[in-house]
């Protein structure tokens, strides 16, 4: 084992505990762990809000001719005499997508876990810029408030889709939404700033503050994924922010960046949006891939299969992710020859995703699989991400995309990646790191109930959408019953809606388990999963400053079932095999 070498001596850097006021400790905290937990509560709240919007959409799609139960509590501008209005439906479509992407999934992946894990897994006391970190959280709060408030202003919330295609998004006279569209852009600018501050922090910390012995290729895959994600966000978010400000000017100051009557170009918006938007897709999946790699190794009691291939796959995805944006625009009127080059880059980016999938399977192969709740979510991530990846091939093949573009096939695809992928990985991550965050275990029994109900209902909701797409059901339509070619699908739509209601209810099983366990869960030991990475070598939860003495790292991140270690099947990154099992020295 040539990799097991100490690269630097340990250094004692005692961290002074000083008394802090409640406000500094829990509210305006600069401790990365508290900030992560703040992000967790905020994003779980928005996950529930985003889901609720989807439930209203599903009701409308399934029963467009029936009033929505309980619709009376909403104002007449949203639900008139019991019926969801088309303009409110457009707001639901737009804000469901926007909230899920920008206020739920992205900050949960990055805000929660980059904050929580980077210092702990790298073996350092805190982030490089703790105060920036605090700002990054507190910028999300006004963004969230503005977003929610926009539902209640005259004209309602933004209704031009989360992709904000101009001219629709730029001209209030064409959407009927005036303030709502502006408020969403202002919120987006806050979110962009938050993300940029966070990214600077994650990148700096990863480059400069690794514990002695923590070389690049000893970093856990979670850190690799979060580090590369931060680079993507740092390069992509400013483009969105700039484009958003240009759109804001078109809306309010009378400029014409995206309006043809003043000399502007509607396609310019799409190019700018997707130049951000496609890296964003990988921002939303790379961290999930990192968590899954970690959980699969721990649950399989095996090192990650092909660790270096996994790292290079992440790097390749990040690089290629910047040159595939045009595949969202095959039908946009962009020069068809340009479409060709985007087909090539898009098919290329599928290769590293395939590599990762096979390596996850390789990790499980001949393992000793512990099927606890985090592991079940991680395995189903692989199963569902595979479906989302494979359905993407249909879109990359441009002639097929002519037919399925802007149909429910796309809705199915994106939810297999974003829900079956990112959110399943996040549930796994929440169960997995919960004991470290809160010092207690979540209930395994209820975790498994949550997993199985979610898994079954999830597939009942999203798998049939491939069928709807094949039939040709367009996205974002308020009522599909007026089309001859869509006559045979109303029963499918009703099935999906019923399953979707069930899926939403499973969230309550999770919420109950989550909150109950914070107060009443079984006390967690330091290392309940017998895991190898550094965060498990601290108390649960770790104290302010994480370590009395910075750990020294001797080997790679996932040393499970090492043949030289006799009395246990794991070797922490700061443990030496010759110390743990003296017999190893003779090898």
């Amino acid at each position: 084992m040539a990799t097991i070498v100490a690269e630097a001596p340990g250094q004692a850097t005692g961290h002074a505990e000083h008394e802090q006021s409640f406000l500094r400790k829990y509210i305006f905290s600069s401790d990365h762990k508290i900030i992560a937990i703040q992000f967790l509560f905020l994003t779980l709240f928005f996950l529930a809000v985003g889901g609720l919007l989807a439930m209203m959409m599903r009701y409308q799609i399934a029963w467009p001719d029936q009033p929505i139960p309980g619709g009376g509590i909403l104002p007449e501008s949203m639900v008139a005499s019991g019926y969801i209005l088309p303009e409110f439906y457009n707001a639901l479509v737009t804000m469901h997508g926007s909230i899920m992407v920008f206020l739920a999934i992205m900050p949960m992946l990055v805000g929660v876990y980059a904050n929580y894990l980077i210092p702990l897994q790298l073996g350092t006391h805190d982030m490089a810029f703790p105060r920036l970190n605090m700002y990054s959280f507190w910028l999300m709060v006004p963004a969230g408030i503005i977003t929610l408030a926009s539902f209640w202003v005259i004209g309602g919330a933004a209704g031009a889709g989360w992709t904000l295609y101009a001219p629709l998004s730029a001209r209030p006279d064409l959407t009927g939404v005036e303030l709502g569209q502006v408020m969403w852009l202002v919120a987006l600018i806050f979110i962009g700033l938050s993300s940029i501050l966070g990214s600077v922090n994650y990148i700096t910390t990863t480059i400069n503050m690794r514990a002695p012995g923590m070389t690049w290729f000893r970093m856990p895959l979670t850190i690799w994924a979060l580090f590369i994600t931060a680079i993507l966000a740092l390069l992509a978010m400013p483009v969105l922010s700039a484009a958003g400000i240009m759109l804001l000017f078109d809306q309010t100051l009378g400029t014409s960046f995206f309006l043809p009557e003043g000399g502007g170009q509607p396609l310019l918006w799409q190019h700018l949006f997707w130049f951000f938007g496609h890296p964003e897709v990988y921002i939303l999946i790379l961290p999930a891939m990192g968590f899954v790699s970690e959980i699969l190794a721990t649950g399989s009691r095996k090192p990650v299969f092909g660790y270096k291939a996994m790292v290079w796959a992440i790097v390749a995805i990040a690089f290629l992710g910047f040159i595939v944006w045009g595949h969202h625009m095959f039908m946009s009127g962009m020069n068809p020859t340009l479409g060709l080059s985007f087909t090539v880059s898009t098919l290329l980016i599928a290769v590293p995703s395939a590599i990762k999938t096979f390596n996850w399977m390789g990790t499980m192969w001949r393992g000793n699989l512990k099927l606890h709740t985090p592991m079940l979510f991680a395995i189903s991530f692989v199963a569902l991400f595979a479906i989302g990846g494979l359905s993407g091939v249909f879109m990359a093949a441009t002639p097929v995309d002519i037919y399925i573009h802007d149909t429910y096939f796309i809705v199915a695809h994106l939810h297999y990646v974003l829900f079956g992928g990112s959110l399943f990985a996040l549930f796994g991550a929440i169960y997995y790191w919960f004991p470290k965050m809160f010092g207690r275990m979540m209930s395994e029994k209820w975790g498994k109930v949550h997993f199985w109900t979610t898994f079954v209902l999830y597939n009942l909701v999203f798998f049939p959408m491939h069928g709807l797409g094949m039939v040709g059901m367009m996205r974002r339509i308020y009522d599909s019953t007026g089309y001859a070619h869509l006559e045979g699908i109303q029963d499918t739509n009703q099935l999906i809606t019923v399953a979707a209601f069930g899926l939403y209810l499973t969230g309550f099983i999770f919420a109950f388990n989550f909150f109950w366990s914070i107060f009443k869960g079984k006390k967690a030991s330091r290392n309940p999963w017998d895991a190898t990475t550094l965060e498990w070598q601290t108390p649960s939860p770790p104290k302010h400053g994480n370590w009395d003495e910075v750990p020294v790292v001797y080997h790679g991140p996932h040393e499970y079932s090492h043949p030289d270690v006799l009395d246990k099947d794991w070797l922490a990154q700061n443990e030496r095999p010759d110390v743990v099992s003296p017999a190893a020295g003779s090898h």
Partner: protein
Amino acid sequence: MDWALPPNYSTFGVQIDQLFWIIFVITGIAFVLVEAGLILFIVKYRSRTGHKAYYTHGSNKLEIIWTVVPALVFVVLGVYSAGLWADIKNPSNMPEGAIEFEVRAKQFEWNIVYPGPDEILGTGDDFEVLNQFHFPAGEPVIVYLEAEDVIHSFFIPELRVKQDAVPGMRIPVWFDATQTGEFEIACAELCGLGHYRMEAAVTVHERADFDAWQASRALAQ
């Protein structure tokens, strides 16, 4: 619960559907391999007491295989797609001598400009009909798409045609219906609160019937 592609009425639609099913088979095989593999591993390698996992960091040979095999499949798919795509979408490949129409989309209607009996757009016998698109079967048709307000998307499922209509642009789209029939133009791009009802009737005639229909409409203008 009928999950199928609608019947195809278009010349290149045959190849589009063929490519769809080729990809369906390829991805279907990959799907079965991955899911069956996962289930097999869960059953076979489920934790047993006293059992230790096999210690390995991977295999370069396997990495090369599962990099190269998908890459080759994608190259073949990419090359095949590229040819078909260029045939359908590239303006320089548009068929010559096609009958030409202009479609102006606006919230929430499709205005069809007919070339009139002289079959030339931009002449005095052109006429415009709202939400009714008539054209002859068995010969190529070119539609020049324009949008007056926001982006719309011109979608006729049975003809396997889709193209965004963008304000400030004039985008040619061609297709060739193999037989007569009645369909709909649907809008596939969110265009405002009436997006869901932005539909127009499509009638594909025999050539003689189309000529008669057009002559009668041209007279009525």
